[in-house]
């Protein structure tokens, strides 16, 4: 059997090897045991920083300093959006939009003359529905990119160039959706998320060509700091539900 590599040695040093075959090899191999000893000796040189002893009243002190800075708790827009009442209102709004869309379509059939004069006119509700469906696809693609960046490493340089390319594409679409002026795009939660998304996409797209681990770490922190992936997921699932309802209603009408 092959000797343990350095990474397996590191796992062994921290008791996280979890591999019976490798453990058995280590027990028999003097060479590997000597190597493990060398690694452990080097790591033993890294100092354990001595943390100053804190007084028993430390927690009280933290609380005393903190308490007056805490604003009275108010539910943020995001949690607010998740409240069931809001979904009822959103559902009602979606139904209204769909009703307007269907009405627009039916009017085309009933009054052919009017439509002949303006064949390319789509009702606001219809336009909103189209934007809403394509925004859903946009957010799906964006989620994939964000997950890829969150798990990226600098050694995958070629892959990262692809991600930058994707970010540029998504950035263009993102700007279009933001400025589309449809009801969906004007929703404050959607606007806010698209704004935050744009900043992160700009960061990804403009990362240096030879991206370093530091650059990737910074991007990952930027995504995590804003809880962006979670926000995008919630908005996307809201849109999906809205679009599903719209399609169902539309299908029934036809």
């Amino acid at each position: 059997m092959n000797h343990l590599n350095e990474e397996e040695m590191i796992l062994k040093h921290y008791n996280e090897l979890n591999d019976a075959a490798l453990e058995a090899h280590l027990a028999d191999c003097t060479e590997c045991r000597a190597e493990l000893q060398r690694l452990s000796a080097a790591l033993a040189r890294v100092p354990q920083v001595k943390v100053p002893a804190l007084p028993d009243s430390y927690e009280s002190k933290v609380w005393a300093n903190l308490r007056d800075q805490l604003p009275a708790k108010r539910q943020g827009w995001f949690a607010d959006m998740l409240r069931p009442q809001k979904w009822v209102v959103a559902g009602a709004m979606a139904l209204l939009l769909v009703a307007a869309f269907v009405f627009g379509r039916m009017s085309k059939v009933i009054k052919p003359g009017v439509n002949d004069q303006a064949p390319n006119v789509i009702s606001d509700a219809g336009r909103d529905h189209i934007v809403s469906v394509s925004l859903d696809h946009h957010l799906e693609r964006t989620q994939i990119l964000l997950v890829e960046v969150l798990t990226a490493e600098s050694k995958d340089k070629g892959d990262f160039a692809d991600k930058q390319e994707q970010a540029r594409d998504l950035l263009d679409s993102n700007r279009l959706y933001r400025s589309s002026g449809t009801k969906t795009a004007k929703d404050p939660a959607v606007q806010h998320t698209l704004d935050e998304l744009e900043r992160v996409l700009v960061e990804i797209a403009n990362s240096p060509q030879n991206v370093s681990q530091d650059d990737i770490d910074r991007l990952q922190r930027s995504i995590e700091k804003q809880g962006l992936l979670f926000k995008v997921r919630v908005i996307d699932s809201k849109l999906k539900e809205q679009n599903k309802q719209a399609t169902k209603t539309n299908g029934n009408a036809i």
Partner: protein
Amino acid sequence: MANSGLNERMEEMEAAAVAQVLAGDRDAFRVLVDAHSRSIFNLAYRMTGNQQDADEVVQETFLRAYKNLDRFEGKSKFSTWVYRIAVNRCLDMLEKKKINGDYTISDDPDPEENTVQVASTDAGPERQLLSRETNEKIATAMKLLTPTERIAFTLRHMEGQSIEEISKTLKVKENAAKNTIFRAVKKLRYNLEPLVATR
């Protein structure tokens, strides 16, 4: 067994405190501060090497946790979530102050100069043999770590967190956490092995 029961009880209490705060009871937040401020201070001190900065990280962490509590999904433990906030505050602090570059090791810690003391439990007589040159080499080796590597390494080497816990704290996949620790250890080993060889 008793420990896992206690942990479950703690988690229930914390979940109840979170719900109370979200319902508008600001004082319920104290339960969470009492439970975690000390361990967050320890982490922050190990990262920044400075008591004042560590205190600042503790305050900012809880302030941010309070403001963003409605984003806490309850899928992970509150401790993991608040630790993640603390880690991000430490990273910001390290980048803002470039503490990484000034971190030195001394027998006489000085918070103003970012010097820290090596724990006396770490081989007593050996500690006295840490020459200035040795200290400089250790400090140089620590400087080579990126902030993320330093966080991951501190969590593993000093805080004793498992790779699985670290991946949750840093909100990365387990493999990514593992690779970050591998990179940190390799860098440190490369620089510290000559010290071992000359012992």
